[in-house]
């Protein structure tokens, strides 16, 4: 393995990004799991196609419907409310749930919600963290004091408790804060909560990085050329934060998806009847005896997605910055 690694090491003066890319490409496991994540993402985008094939929508109930399998007519949901298991056909490919809704269709639409929230929340986290890290690290003084104390408070806040409290409180009537207006059932409520919470994990290391970068010669040179603070922050410092941000992104998405699952499971995330993996698992608990597929299917999807992101993130870290101490989530 050492020899293989040796062959990959650069001729002197090679572009560090190209080197990192080459290292990542050589890591077949990470690439494989990255591809798995891409497939899951593509499947979620194809949700309407499958809904068309299955001839239903994620939230349409089919309590009184029947389906013919191998010449036998069967209830989608029996009289004692036992839903049909996987049929491996277009209709009810993965079975139905307690309301006769098509699990496969809900799973794909749930993937849309879970992945949308995970990715969007991470974008919010990264934007916030970059802004706070740059401002606090470059301007120092009172700005740094305010930002650092605010981060301390969010850091000390019990994440799950905050998420549950906000999720439940805002779900009733939504949020109206100046120009920002979100309706009660909106996906943006869990997205914003998770995004803000996740920003802390990245903002602290970025601030530290900026503090050390601002003392270096290239920043001094830019300043001597008359560059203002904004230009230095965005033009000189930001590109140097890119590798750290990149290392965090897959792990932040993984953490966001897990947190969304937990909040939705507790009824503080995505609102029913809108599906997400967390709500589907929550719905499945009561029917675990008669219809175990209701819980196992979304759970396996959730684990596969988070695992794919964790392995990919591990590979990205090893390729970009093997020494980095990265920790997301608690």
């Amino acid at each position, binding site marked *: 393995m050492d020899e293989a690694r040796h062959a990959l090491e650069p001729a002197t003066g090679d572009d560090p990004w190209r080197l990192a890319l080459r290292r990542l490409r050589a890591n077949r496991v990470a690439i494989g799991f990255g591809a798995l994540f891409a497939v899951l993402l593509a499947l979620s985008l194809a949700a309407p196609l499958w809904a068309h094939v299955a001839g239903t929508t994620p939230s349409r109930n089919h309590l009184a419907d029947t389906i013919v399998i191998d010449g036998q007519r069967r209830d989608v949901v029996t009289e004692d409310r036992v839903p049909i298991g996987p049929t491996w056909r277009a209709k009810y490919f993965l079975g139905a749930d307690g309301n006769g809704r098509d699990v496969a269709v809900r799973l794909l639409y749930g993937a849309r919600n879970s992945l949308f929230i995970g990715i969007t929340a991470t974008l919010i986290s990264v934007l916030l963290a970059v802004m706070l890290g740059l401002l606090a690290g470059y301007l120092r003084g009172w700005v740094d004091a305010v930002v650092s104390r605010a981060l301390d408070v969010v850091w000390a806040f019990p994440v799950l408790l905050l998420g549950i409290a906000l999720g439940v*409180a805002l779900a*009733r009537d939504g949020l109206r804060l100046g120009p920002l207006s979100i309706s009660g059932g909106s996906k943006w409520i869990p997205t914003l909560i998770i995004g803000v919470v996740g920003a802390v994990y990245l903002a602290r290391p970025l601030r530290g990085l900026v503090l050390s970068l601002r003392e270096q010669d290239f920043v001094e040179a830019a300043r001597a050329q008359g560059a203002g603070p904004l230009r230095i922050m965005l033009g000189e410092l930001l590109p140097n934060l890119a590798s750290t941000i990149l290392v965090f992104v897959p792990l932040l998405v993984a953490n966001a998806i897990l947190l969304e699952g*937990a909040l939705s499971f507790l009824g503080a995330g995505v609102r029913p009847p809108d599906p997400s993996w967390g709500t589907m698992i929550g719905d499945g608990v009561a029917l675990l005896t008669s219809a175990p597929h209701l819980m196992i299917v979304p759970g396996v999807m959730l684990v596969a997605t988070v695992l794919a992101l964790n392995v990919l993130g591990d590979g990205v870290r090893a390729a970009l910055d093997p020494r980095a101490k990265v920790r997301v989530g608690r």
Partner: protein
Amino acid sequence: MLRFIARRLAGMLAVLFAVSVLTFLIFAVIPDGAPEDRMAGPTASPGEVAAVRREWGFDKPLYVQYARTMTKIFTGDVVSYVDRTNVVEEIGRGAPRTFSLAIGAAILWVAGGIALGLFGAARAGRATDRLITVLALIGVSMPVFWLGALASHYLGFEAGIFPDGGYAEIGRHGLLEWLWHLVLPWSVLAVVLIGVYSRVLRSNLLDALHADYVRTARAKGLSEGAVLRRHALPNALIPIVTLWGLDFGAVLGGGAVLTESVFDLQGVGQYFADSVGRLDVPPVLAVTMLGTFFIVAVNTIVDIAYAALDPRIRL
């Protein structure tokens, strides 16, 4: 050192204050979140609603309400808006359950993490090391609520090996019953963190194995096992101690909600989840304060311990 401790304690109080104000505000600014409407009931006349508002002081300015609620939390007089039970007593009832869960799980995850980390580092690059890495990553990716619900159902309800959720008090049901009810919750909570710990320890150990003092130990003719255990391990463990403190604080400070709910342990976290569902502000505020206290306190202790242990950190 004393000045450092004093500064950290002052910072701790400031953070607690900020968190309490924020939590109070979250519930104060919810549109239509006025508790008197819910408390008086859907059929109440405007006069009855007004009476409730006066009785509970909801007509006072926010800062007065905040000060009153906080005073009541600290004197132990705070009661639920919904059923008027004493919040501090309810928390006292749940606390032994939450502590039992957190302490047992913490022992399990640190022991498991160290064992797997040592094993992985000793066999770095071999098949067993790869297998441990894969298992650790799967563990890290597990949603606690899913794993817990499956374990409780299949090992508890169906197989009957373990109890089907619930908690047994030591005083009433004996040590064995208590242990029996907690084995599954402990394991489920620990699985996720064992993965984290084994990976951190493994990489710390591998770093340490390349350090000069380890080369010296090898040069003295020590066996590889002795080098690993007596020279590399103590240094690699320091970051684990920090991590352990932070995670323990986080589990006490709300991380246990999911495990408690899934296994119906009726601890503080579950009390919180139930109270939020009823928009019952006093318990939410009190539990959030308590959770924050644990997180901040453990953070402070870890910082102080670190400063005391590591001569390179100047205060």
